[in-house]
């Protein structure tokens, strides 16, 4: 059997076996193996890929030809799926209770692999659906409304994509990417092109969580096994991101030719970029106002995806490379965050900020991981998150796009804001007394977190590692990387190692001064200055709810506008309409039914004569 097919179907096989056997122990082993095998194959195929540039395989199936291809681009995305998927499944060993979750989690992983490796639109669509179903089933188990919201939006997206695919197929008679690109370039009309672009935008926008199609994400991300959410947010949303690259690959040239560019960016790219910018801002602001730890990160995930969309929208090869870099780092740090959330929920059983606090002392390892993730997400050098954000900044601003630049800047600040809220409410401050015997992360979760935390640091200090791979995608030195540590864009430079070294120097200087001073004495949280009032642990010393109340008040006007509500209203309207319609149409009176027949006869008569 071909390696590509093994990569794609190993998780599904593992999942089905785990579900069918459903024996504690073997189930977990099979599941983790299902996620580990593709990763191993991907690593193994790397040298082959490097030599040949592309590994392809195609099969005839059900009257269609499905082709799969491992290119540098798909390898990068598949590696994201591999690493995050593996970490997520390892974490599921702790948090997952039954075979059901293993089946569907791994099914969605198969879907993600399939989406990345498919080299034709139909296969892409099929795996896309598979992935959607797998993840939907994971959500459905926890919440019906969140699941259905997710599914309806996803399916709307998937069907939009399908319509676009069908349009293209009607034109080209083939699903394979090269044929499609050719056919679109030479034969597609302006109207159809715009339609296909719009449909793709909806399709991929839904999965990526693009504003205003993001409303499923907060509910779906939070209402499922949090270990799985690491994969959900880390890998599955990347399929949407990959889809945007696909837009460029398939219809990008034609769009560029047909609609041209405004200033330096393609006109259609502005749509993506500005929606991305809005996604950053809306996601970030809403993240800051959440009271539930899972929702905070769900919105944060939306916000971070916005960066990628902005980068893709700008449409230069530098910006797309930056976007892919951010996709990698987003997968790493957001996966890590959701694993941390999983650990917290696993150990405390609580999800709202109001019930937490002071866990840093009780869960030092988890906190250390959280610290890495926070630094990475907030874009603190030298972390992977900073490098990718930096690249996006440079890519966007160097194209003279001031408004987008401002949006991106705002996004980085809002990142600080919600992260500090998370840090404050969960790790610091007073600990509720019922959390006093909380233990640190169990081994599987700890291993999973470590798997994701290490690249977060490594890819920040040695960005050359990543950039080398990404340059191969474009077949040129988009970002020159003289050494492993350094990036050079011509108009901006970054050196991770230097930053690390000098940061350590700075820390050493500070530490020397610190240790010259008198020794410190540890005091409890009740021994803090409360205007001289004595306090005990019964007091609530932490602002647990409405931390950013002033922000909420300042934004009160905008917060009233809710797309979630709009979609719910549309849904309710459709249901009511259906109710009314069926009671009128199928009213139970046989005579009315006879009238329908007469009506059709009348129409036939009018049509005939």
């Amino acid at each position, binding site marked *: 059997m071909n390696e590509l097919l093994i990569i794609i179907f190993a998780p599904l096989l593992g999942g089905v076996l785990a579900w069918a056997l459903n024996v504690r122990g073997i189930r977990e082993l099979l599941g983790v193996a299902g996620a580990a095998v593709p990763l191993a194959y991907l690593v193994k195929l790397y040298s082959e890929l490097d030599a040949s540039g592309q590994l392809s395989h195609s099969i005839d199936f059900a009257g269609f030809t499905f082709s799969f291809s491992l290119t540098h681009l798909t390898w990068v995305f598949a590696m994201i799926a591999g690493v995050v998927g593996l970490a997520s499944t390892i974490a599921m060993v702790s948090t997952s209770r039954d075979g059901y979750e293993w089946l569907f989690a791994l099914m969605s992983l198969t879907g993600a692999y399939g989406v990345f490796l498919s080299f034709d639109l139909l296969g892409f669509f099929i795996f896309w659906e598979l992935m959607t179903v797998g993840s939907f089933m994971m959500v459905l188990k926890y919440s019906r409304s969140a699941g259905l919201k997710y599914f309806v939006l996803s399916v709307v997206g998937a069907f939009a994509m399908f319509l676009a695919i069908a349009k293209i197929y009607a034109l080209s008679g083939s699903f394979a990417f090269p044929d499609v690109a050719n056919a679109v370039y030479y034969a597609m009309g302006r109207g159809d092109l715009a339609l296909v672009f719009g449909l793709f935008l909806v399709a991929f926008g839904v999965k990526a969580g693009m504003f205003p199609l993001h409303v499923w994400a907060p509910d779906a991300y939070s209402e499922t096994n949090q270990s799985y959410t690491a994969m959900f947010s880390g890998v599955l949303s990347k399929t949407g991101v990959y889809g945007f690259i696909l837009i460029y690959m398939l219809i990008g040239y034609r769009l560029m030719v047909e609609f041209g560019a405004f200033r330096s960016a393609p006109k259609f790219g502005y749509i993506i970029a500005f929606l991305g910018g809005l996604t950053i801002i809306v996601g970030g602001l809403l993240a800051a106002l959440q009271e539930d730890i899972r929702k905070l990160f769900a919105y944060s995930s939306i916000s971070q995806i916005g960066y990628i969309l902005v980068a893709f929208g700008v449409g230069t090869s530098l910006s797309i490379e930056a976007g892919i870099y951010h996709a990698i780092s987003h997968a790493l740090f957001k996966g890590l965050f959701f694993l941390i959330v999983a650990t917290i929920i696993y150990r405390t059983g609580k999800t709202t900020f109001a019930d937490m606090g002071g866990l840093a002392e009780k869960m030092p390892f988890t906190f250390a991981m959280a610290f890495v993730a926070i630094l990475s997400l907030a874009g603190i050098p030298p972390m992977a998150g900073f490098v990718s954000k930096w690249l996006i900044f440079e890519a966007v601003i160097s194209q003279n796009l001031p408004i987008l630049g401002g949006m991106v800047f705002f996004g980085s600040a809002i990142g600080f804001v919600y992260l500090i809220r998370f840090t404050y409410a969960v790790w610091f401050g007073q600990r509720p007394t019922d959390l006093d015997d909380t233990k640190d992360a169990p081994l599987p979760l700890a291993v999973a977190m470590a798997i994701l935390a290490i690249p977060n640091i490594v890819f920040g200090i040695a960005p050359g590692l990543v950039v080398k791979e990404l340059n191969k995608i474009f077949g040129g030195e988009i970002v020159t990387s003289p050494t492993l540590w350094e990036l050079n864009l011509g108009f901006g430079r970054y050196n991770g190692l230097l930053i690390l070294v000098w940061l350590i120097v700075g820390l050493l200087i500070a530490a020397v001064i610190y240790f*010259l001073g008198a020794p410190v004495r540890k005091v409890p949280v009740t*021994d803090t*200055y409360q*205007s*001289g*009032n*004595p*306090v*005990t642990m*019964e*007091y*609530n010393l932490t602002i647990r709810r409405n931390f950013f109340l002033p922000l909420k008040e300042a934004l009160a006007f905008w917060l009233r506008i809710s797309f979630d509500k709009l979609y719910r209203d549309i849904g309710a309207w459709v249901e009511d309409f259906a109710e009314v319609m069926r009671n009128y149409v199928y009213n139970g009176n046989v005579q009315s039914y006879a009238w329908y027949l007469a009506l059709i006869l009348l129409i036939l008569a009018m049509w005939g004569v």
Partner: protein
Amino acid sequence: MVDWRLYEPLINFARKRSMWIVAFCTGCGGIEMPPLMTSRYDLERFGMMPNPAPRMADLFLITGYVTPKTLKRIIITYEMQPDPKYVLAHGSCPLNGGIYWDAYNAIKHLDKYIPVDVAIAGCMPRPEAVMDGIKKIMDLIETGKADGWKRYKENYEYYKKNQDELFGEGWREKTARRWIPWLMGREKKREEE
């Protein structure tokens, strides 16, 4: 480690010329502080600066009479200050009760509860007198005689006994808990809203 005794004069000078005050006006003498700090007398000349938090402050001004209720806060705040720390008592009241000498609810001798480095007599002492007191405490710092914080440590049993006599054992927790029902009620009300 470095032998810090070599730098003792410098450090003492710094301590003397950089006294941060806990801005905690415990009594009627607080009104004397604005003239001290503003353009008329300008204590900032000597590096003094009102400071709202006790953790980084050096000088504690007891500006007037002390009631048991304030005394609890004074003790807690005083204990929060890092060493070395100094206490300057304003006026007669902290010394002997002053006009409240027979009041049931005023503390007559502050130095039974915390050590006082310098006391300024008067009711109230004028800013000039306060400045004189500050000058005095500066001298004491320079010569190393402002050792109230050492005394508090050494004679902690004594101070503790006096405090407990006045407030009863475990007064900190008891005082703290007095407010909880009220706080809880307010919390509940807010939630209902």
